[in-house]
Every structure is written in structure tokens, then in C-alpha cells.
């Protein structure tokens, strides 16, 4: 088997032990590729555990800019004996295995269709360092040194990264550079460098930034003017709040007094965190919470209250694999239906569906405007794949002329001037009534907020007609929402086609790559990326224009497809389910395989689709 030769287009995967300090070494490795101008997309694969279990870091290097998971490993960096067998098996034929050969491996466990590169990492480390902690940390830097030699990464780039990371701590910089060079020189001296896989300086990164989706959501909330964040820790959403608090602490603390213009409150559970958000929203602050599936389940009753009493609230749901506790560290798009129709009784909610960290920032800020404008809960649905992985995305942008949209709020001046106020009166015909903040005016504009039915002036009533009038207005408001939420993005195929695909969120990268794959085979597909629910009317039009539309998503029950059919009264037979839900991110190959299979194009593809 001939070893693979590839420049700027391969997959490296590092197998580590959780809690061994490999995370920052791996991040630096990925960043060194980016600094050479070559797009690289890392993914953390980690267990629901703190220390001692297997964890992986996978980097897809792709000059073409594909960011979706690819499948298969070209170079396996095997640092964890626990997972030896499965790791070795995952290498594609012709690939490479780099492992620590300090201790001899049991015989007969190596494949002969791969190139095996042994480095006595432990031995090198232990010969140089004596403190246990130093040994653990520097071993990681040493293998980065080896990798730089194997893959032809410029050492100056890595050294610069180290200098940035330990800025101000010169001793640490020197020590790390030393460890890096130790590994690098061992490789240059003892191994054939570089191997067939190489990083070559390019200019494909441009002004892109490298950032996690969760951090971007947190930043979006800062820019969107959130002042109250109430939350309860849950994987994979915790870093949304950490991000918010970090950026807010940077930008929103008075340098003199130390006073903060934000409050992050760790609640006792998710019922309390959404309750706080609703209380703050009712009282005129912009507030949000971040959680994952179990939290959304616990918030159901409160979500219904916010819908019916019309209180702005933003809920970030970083989805993970359900049902129940499921696989807390694996990714899925499985809360779509629950969020869209959350709570008992007739309800419909607005969902925002960002594709990456850039949209996480944008939609994060927008969600607060939408919540105030529509006076209703807004769900920002991301997932673990977007949220907890650093990804190369377009830089964040902000228009300084942009104003916070506080929606329809009647002021003390307006009330004083005698403007009529009826809390649930649809004065503008768009279903959105006016509200007042508590404490606005001594004698006018006060009202009682409740989850029970009431009339247009917020007076309690059990009258059926008043109830129905209100429920119909809420439908009208949902219709209005269509014109406020981010519109879908359409990308037509090169030639006219009767095939379409609808997709959203973290599926986007792989879907778009799959379209390229299929186009190369002559299968042209028009693409429509939906970015919000309720759907813009163009979605129905898109579907009507195509004979067959693939709806691609990462859950078992085709949840977005259900929404499409139900809200658009569409014929389900026109909408083909393309699903993947085993907790790993969907790949372009899987999508293309399932589409081929559905079109009857490829027998082999059917096997792949079932993978």
C-alpha cells in the first residue's frame, strides 16, 4: 500500500487521556496550521468524565475550506493505550500512525497497510524532566514538536504561538520552546521528515477568526445588550455563560468603581434560571439563559407562561444527544420540535438556527432584539459541534449606527400625554401589543401580568370570546415574526434542477460539501439553508419549485421536516428524510451516500448511508 501523499488536505487525530493537559497542546497544533494560512477544523471528542477516560482531538486540514467532519483518519497520533485497537483501525489505508514506543507493543497488533512511526516520547520526556507535572505537560509539547517535523510546519509559527500564549512569563516561553524543539529535533534526527502529508503555506485563511460557537453566543449577548444572565451549568452550554461573563467583565465594568452593567446569576436549577430570565424580561431588562435538552424540558411550564403572558426571554439551547441524559458530550439537532411547540396548550415559538460561530454572534445579538420586538421567548438553537469546537469563521462585525430594538414600550411621557394603553390590544394589526415597564408612571399604565386568560386590557376573565381573541392575536404575531427573523439562504446549483435540499445549523458545512461531491458526479441540487422558524414564505416556494427536497438533519425523527410539513401544509412525500443521529457530526460522505441511495444511483452508496 502506497503511503498517502497530500498537501493541505488530510485528517489528523490525536488520541489522549482526559485531563492529561493535552487540550492546549492540540489547540496550538491546530493554530499553527491556521497561521500558515491553511484552513483547519478541529473537533474535540470527549467523554462525560473529568479525568482518565479517552478523548480525541481531530483536525481536518482542508485548503478548499471544508469544515465538516470528513470521516477516516490519515495520521493518527496515538497517545492513549486504552484505545489502541480502535484508533489503529480508524486509519485509512495508506495512512500513518505516530505512537509512543517507549514500551514495546504486543506483537501482531499493527496493520501492514499503514506507515508506523514510533517515538519514545515517555523516555525522552522522563530523561529531561523530573517533576511529575512537568513530565505530563511537556510530553504534549514534545509531540507537537514531532508533528511539526512530520508535517513540515514552520517552527517559527509554533514558537510565536508559544510566545503569545505565555506572554509576560518569559521562563515559561523558554521552557516550552525547549520542549517543542526537543520533539522536533528528535524527529528530524531519527525519522524521515516530512511524511507524505504536509502543510504548505497558503493564503486561504484571510481575515477569518478562530473561535468557539459558545463564546461567540456569549459575545453576541454582550453586543445585544443583555444585562441579566441566569443559568444552571450543563454540558455543552456552560461555556456560553462563561463567554458572556468573560466578555462582559472586559467591556462592561467601570474602570473606576468596578461596578458592572450586567449580572450573571447561577441559579439553583433550570426552573429558576428561566424564572429569573422571565422576571428580568418582565421588568424591562434584556435577559437570557443557556442550557441543553434536559434544561429545556424543565423549563416547559415557564416557557408557556412567557408565551401566553408575552414576556421577552432568550433561551440558548446547545443541543446534545438525547433523549434523557443521553450522550451529554455528543452532538445532535434533537430539540427542534420540543422547542418549537414547547409547553402544554397551543403554543408556537421562534427558533434561530445559526450555522457557525459567526452566526452565533449575530443571532445572539439579534435574539435579544427579537425577544423585545415580539415579546415572546426566542430559542437560539445551536449544538455541541458548533458550540464547543473552535472553528474558522468570518470575523465578527458590528454596525455602530445600530440601535437596540426595545420593541413597543409605552413610556411615562406617552402615558402622561394620555395615550391609551391596553396591554393586550393589537393597535397596529401585527399582533404585537404595547407594554409598560413596572414603575413607569404613578397612575397610568400599570397592569397585572398573569398566565391565566384575560381581556385586551389585561383584566382577568374566563370569557371564551376574549380568550379566543387573544389566541388568534398570538397567531397573528407569529405570522409577523416571519418578517423579522433571519431569512433563509438559497444557493442554486450551476444548472437548473428538480432536486433541492433543506438543512440548518451544524449540518450546513457537510451538506454544502456533499452538494459539491454530488455535483462532481453530475447530481445537481439547489440548496436552501433555513435560519429560523417560523419559516419565511420563500421556503414553501422553494419546495414547490422542486420535485424532491432532501431535508437533512441530525436527529432520528426528522424534526425540522415535521415543522416544514405542519406549518406549510406540504406534502410529506415530497420531502425526503436524510438523517444521522449517532452523536457524531454528520459528514458530507454520509449525506451524499444517503442522497445517492434515495435516488437509486449507487448500490454501494446504500451501504455507506447505513454506516
Amino acid at each position: 500500500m502506497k503511503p498517502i501523499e497530500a498537501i493541505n488536505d488530510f485528517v489528523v487525530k490525536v488520541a489522549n487521556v482526559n485531563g492529561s493537559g493535552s487540550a492546549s497542546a492540540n489547540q496550538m497544533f491546530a493554530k499553527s496550521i491556521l497561521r500558515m494560512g491553511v484552513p483547519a477544523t478541529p473537533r474535540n471528542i470527549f467523554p462525560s468524565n473529568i479525568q482518565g477516560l479517552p478523548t480525541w482531538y481531530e483536525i481536518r486540514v482542508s485548503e478548499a475550506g471544508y469544515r465538516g467532519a470528513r470521516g477516516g483518519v490519515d495520521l493518527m497520533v496515538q497517545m492513549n493505550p486504552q484505545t489502541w485497537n480502535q484508533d489503529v483501525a480508524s486509519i485509512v489505508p495508506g495512512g500513518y500512525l505516530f505512537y509512543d514506543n517507549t514500551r514495546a507493543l504486543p506483537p501482531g497488533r499493527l496493520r501492514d497497510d499503514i506507515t508506523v512511526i514510533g517515538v519514545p516520547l515517555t523516555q525522552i520526556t522522563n530523561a529531561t524532566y523530573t517533576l511529575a507535572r512537568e513530565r505530563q505537560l511537556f510530553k504534549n509539547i514534545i509531540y507537537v514538536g514531532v508533528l511539526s517535523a512530520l508535517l513540515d510546519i514552520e517552527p517559527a509559527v509554533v514558537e510565536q504561538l508559544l510566545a503569545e500564549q505565555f506572554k509576560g512569563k518569559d521562563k515559561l516561553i523558554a521552557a516550552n520552546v525547549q520542549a517543542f524543539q526537543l520533539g522536533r529535533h528528535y524527529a528530524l534526527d531519527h525519522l524521515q521528515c516530512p511524511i507524505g502529508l504536509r502543510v504548505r503555506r497558503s493564503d486561504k485563511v484571510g481575515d477569518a477568526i478562530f473561535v468557539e460557537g459558545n463564546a461567540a453566543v456569549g459575545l453576541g449577548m454582550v453586543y445585544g445588550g443583555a444585562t441579566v444572565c441566569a443559568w444552571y451549568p450543563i454540558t455543552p452550554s456552560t461555556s456560553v455563560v462563561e463567554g458572556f461573563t468573560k466578555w462582559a467583565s472586559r467591556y462592561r465594568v467601570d474602570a473606576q468603581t468596578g461596578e458592572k452593567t450586567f449580572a450573571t446569576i447561577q441559579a439553583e436549577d433550570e426552573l429558576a434560571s428561566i424564572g429569573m430570565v422571565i422576571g428580568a424580561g418582565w421588568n424591562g431588562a434584556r435577559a437570557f439563559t443557556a442550557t441543553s435538552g434536559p434544561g429545556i424540558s424543565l423549563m416547559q411550564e415557564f416557557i408557556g407562561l412567557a408565551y401566553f403572558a408575552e414576556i421577552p426571554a432568550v433561551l440558548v439551547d446547545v443541543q446534545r444527544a438525547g433523549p434523557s441524559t443521553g450522550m451529554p458530550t455528543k452532538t445532535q439537532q434533537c430539540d427542534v420540535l420540543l422547542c418549537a411547540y414547547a409547553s402544554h396548550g397551543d403554543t408556537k415559538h421562534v427558533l434561530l438556527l445559526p450555522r457557525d460561530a459567526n452566526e452565533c454572534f449575530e443571532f445572539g445579538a439579534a435574539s435579544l432584539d427579537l425577544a423585545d420586538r415580539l415579546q415572546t421567548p426566542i430559542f437560539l438553537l445551536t449544538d455541541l459541534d458548533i458550540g464547543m469546537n473552535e472553528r474558522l469563521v468570518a470575523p465578527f462585525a458590528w454596525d455602530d449606527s445600530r440601535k437596540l430594538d426595545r420593541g413597543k414600550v409605552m413610556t411615562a411621557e406617552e402615558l402622561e400625554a394620555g395615550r391609551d394603553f391596553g396591554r393586550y390590544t393589537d393597535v397596529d394589526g401585527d399582533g404585537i401589543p404595547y407594554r409598560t415597564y413596572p414603575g413607569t408612571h404613578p397612575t397610568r399604565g400599570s397592569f397585572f401580568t398573569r398566565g391565566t386568560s384575560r381581556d385586551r386590557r389585561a383584566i382577568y376573565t374566563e370569557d371564551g370570546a376574549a380568550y379566543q381573541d387573544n389566541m388568534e392575536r398570538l397567531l397573528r404575531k407569529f405570522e409577523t415574526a416571519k418578517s423579522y427573523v433571519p431569512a433563509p439562504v438559497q444557493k442554486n446549483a450551476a444548472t437548473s434542477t428538480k432536486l433541492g435540499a433543506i438543512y440548518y445549523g451544524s449540518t450546513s458545512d457537510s451538506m454544502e460539501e456533499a452538494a459539491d461531491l454530488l455535483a462532481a458526479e453530475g447530481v445537481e441540487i439547489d440548496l436552501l439553508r433555513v435560519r429560523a422558524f417560523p419559516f419565511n414564505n420563500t421556503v414553501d416556494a422553494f419546495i414547490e419549485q422542486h420535485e424532491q427536497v432532501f431535508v437533512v438533519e441530525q436527529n432520528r425523527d426528522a424534526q425540522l421536516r415535521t415543522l416544514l410539513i405542519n406549518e406549510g401544509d406540504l406534502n410529506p412525500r415530497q420531502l425526503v428524510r436524510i438523517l444521522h443521529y449517532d452523536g457524531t457530526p454528520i459528514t458530507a460522505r454520509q449525506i451524499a451516500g444517503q442522497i445517492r441511495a434515495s435516488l437509486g444511483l449507487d448500490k454501494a452508496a446504500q451501504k455507506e448511508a447505513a454506516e
Partner: protein
Amino acid sequence: MTYLPKPKLHHPELPKNDLGYTRRDYEGSISTLCAGCGHDSISAAIIHACYELSLPPHRIAKLSGIGCSSKTPTYFLGASHGFNSVHGRMPSVLTGAAAANRDLIYLGVSGDGDSASIGLGQFAHAMRRGVNMTYIVENNGVYGLTKGQFSATADRGAKNKKGATNQDAPIDLISMAMLMGASFVGRSFSGDKPQLVPLLKAALAHKGPAFIDVISPCVTFNNHEGSTKSYDYVREHNEAVNFLDVIMSRQEITVDYAPGTVEVVRQHDGSLIKLRKKADEYDVHDKIAAMEYVQKHQAHGEIVTGLLYVDTDSQDMHDHLGTCSTPLNALEGETLVPGSAALAKLNASLR
């Protein structure tokens, strides 16, 4: 409930408080509770207290859960914004509201089912967090609105209307509030206006979580023999610890109380509470002793009332959070949005 609405006209001779408001300005819409319900007496006491403190009605936010008790905010302070949220979860809603605007006065109204059963966790955590509020439980030992099941404050051995006996240990909300960190804790009885009104005034003037447990008999489902929350039972077992009154600091005149048995407590805003101790050794600043006192008397079937514990040095949630003095809900985009220049720098750091 009184079917005929009271005339809306203000009597020209009604006395006015410092703000020029009459008692009527602190009323709400007509109660739909059962005639004689203890909760209505509490509403009256709240009206009274707010009037006497000259609080601007619209600067009070009144929040509640679900239950007969939680309905009462509709029946007082009609010029205030009110929020009848969901069952047992008022504390979190109030916490969020308090975070959003530190300048309003927060009044949380709840029932024993609402706070001791479904809402126990939220009740406890709001106390821990130091939310600046007055939290009232209108405690009748039953679920009034769902027709008379035992709540978690019903005493072991209490019988309900259907003859069933409560078997579970009762929750003493007073001890619980102290344990959780409330900085003002008192108990009273809905029918004891002379005690309740001053207690409410002191609580409203207190900075930090002020908790008041008000025994409030349910005339429909719990005012019968065997119930330890009935009027008669409470009247018999009520041992008032102290009397108190609030004097807003701007008045600076203390009421003429019998001397010798009076202790003066200085509140955060400078206002004073005067206490008449029942027992000479009672010290409202000693939490551990207060808990012991309450529980010892409880063990003898006695309900201790009065101001039981106060910490005049308490910090509130905003102190803990370090939030700015401007209410968060009043901040504008200029203050809140870092802008494009900061973003450009930030982008640069992410490359």
C-alpha cells in the same frame, strides 16, 4: 367576596399621607376570595403598611405564584405592576425582576403550598441569594384553591374536612428562612393587625430578604376543629414575642411606647424598629438562639410571633453581584454595546 364594587370616588375628607395619597390609592380590585378568608386581612394590612410608609404605589412590584393567596396581589396596590406567575416559582421571577431594577420595592406573596411544597427550593435559594424583598407566606396549612388538601406546613396529626389525618412532618418556614440566610424573619397572624402592620412596615424598609410567615386561616377548608391553622387554635397558641413599629428616618420621632421593654434596631436605610421583648433574654440579632426559641416553643405547641431575627448589616444580591447603581433595565445601548472598534481588536486576538 363582596359583590358590589365600592364607589370609585375618593371621599374628600380621607386623610392623606406624605405623598398626598389616601388609603384608597393603595387598594386594588375587589377580592374574589371567600368571605372571611384570612388572606383578605393580610391584603388590608399591606394596604395599611404601604399607606403609612408613604410608599409610591407604582414603585412597588408585587409578584406571586398560584393559589388563593397568590391571587391577592390583584386586591391591593392597583397602581403597581403585578405578576401572578406559576405555582411555586415566584421567588425566581422576583429574583430576576430585582436583578433588572434595583430601585423598585419588591413584594413577594405566596401560600404555604406555593412556598413549602412545590416552591420549597426556590424559596430557600432566594433567601440564600440575599434578594432585596419582602416575602410573605399566607400560611393556612392547606391548598385552598384546589380545595383543601394538606400543604407541607400542616401539622402532623391535623385533620382535614374529609377526616384524613396528616402524617408528614410539618415544615417550619421561619426556621427554614433563618437557616437559609434571610436577614429579616418574622411571623404574625392575619387577624392581628396591630402586630402585622408594623412588621410589614419594618420588612418593607429592610434591605435584603425579609420573610414574614403569616398564619392565615382558610375559612372554607381549614377552620374547623383539629386544624392547627384555624382562628381559634392560633388565638390560643399565639405567643407574641415583641411589638414593633417603623419610623422612617426622615421623621426622626419615635412613637411613645412604654419604656424599659423597648429595644431600638437601626435598619439599613436608617429607619428604626423598636421592639418590645416578651422575654427579657430575647435578642433579635442572635439567629441560633432565635431558631432554638422558635423550635422549643413549637415543641410545646406554641406559635411564636413577632420580629424574630434581623441582621441590620446584611448585604443584598446587588452588593454580591457588584452591579452598578443605575438599574440594569435603564441602561442604553451606548453603555451596553462595546462597539465595532472593540470588536476589531477582539477579532484580531482570535487569529
